[in-house]
């Protein structure tokens, strides 16, 4: 079965999110004064073949470790969704 997965990768809280900080400042400069915080990360959308949602998740987790995420500086979440196609 084909599954869709999304990996949300964000800079670790202990690591400075320089990009987020810059975006935040610019938004406030543009007049969005109700803004409290902005953080910028990466999103990887994946389609893959797997037996079950569980095994899809396992597979994506291992992709994260192998390539997608630098665990020294980033954290990640995986969202799995069965695909209709």
């Amino acid at each position, binding site marked *: 079965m084909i599954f869709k997965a999304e990996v949300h990768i964000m800079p670790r809280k202990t690591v400075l999110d*320089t*990009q987020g900080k*810059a*975006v935040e400042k*610019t938004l406030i*400069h*543009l007049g969005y004064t109700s803004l409290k915080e902005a953080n*910028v990360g990466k999103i990887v959308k994946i389609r893959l073949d797997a037996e079950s949602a569980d095994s899809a998740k396992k597979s994506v987790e291992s992709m994260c470790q192998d390539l997608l995420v630098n665990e020294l500086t980033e954290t990640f979440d995986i969202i799995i969704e069965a695909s209709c196609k």
Partner: protein
Amino acid sequence: MKTSIVVFPGSSCDRDIERAISETLNTQVDMVWHEETTFSNDPDLVILPGGYSFGGYLRSGAMAACSNIIEAIKTHAAKGKMILGIANGFQILTEAQLLPGALIPNTSLTFICQKAYLRVEQTENMFTSDYKIGDVVQFPIAHHEGLYFLPPSELKELEDAGQVVFRYADPVTGESGAEYALEGSLNGIAGICNKKGNILGLMPHPERATFKHLNGGVDGIAFWKSIAKAFGERGGF
């Protein structure tokens, strides 16, 4: 002739351009901080330099395009006066929608600093009149987001309107096109102008091809000469 060079936090080619035009143009130069809301010296030419404005974060040029000075630049443009954006300056011009298109990451996904060869495709603007159509010139490139992109129909419009000014080319045959664009630019586009020909944006650095004792060649000199010519004709000096 009066020139204003806009300095954004993170600009790094501002001083380079200042030097290049000071030596080649008879112009008074003003460095203008991005937080200004007007150009106090009523410049003829506004230059947006290369570098990493706002660290290049989010998208190159995106945050600079939100700076105070952009309104003044738009006013300047509306008067038909000259605006030149080099590298990050070009990215800022597209983000501010003063020029069409977008500059996205090189297909190599790496930064590329190299000599680049460009065919002059158009001389009916205020920046290339000292060249002939078909001339191949060398201006170095140095960018990570230099792939010129525009959706197909708009790209055709741009081409039909003759707004492509520089296209990457083979230095030997002079042939130009996508296959010579190291970063994968559509149609091999390296620089474009607006319809009126008073705004030019290009990824390669003419200022790096201006001093003969440096390692970037001298093909940029005619570029500065063209600008001077645009003023000579309009009695700008």
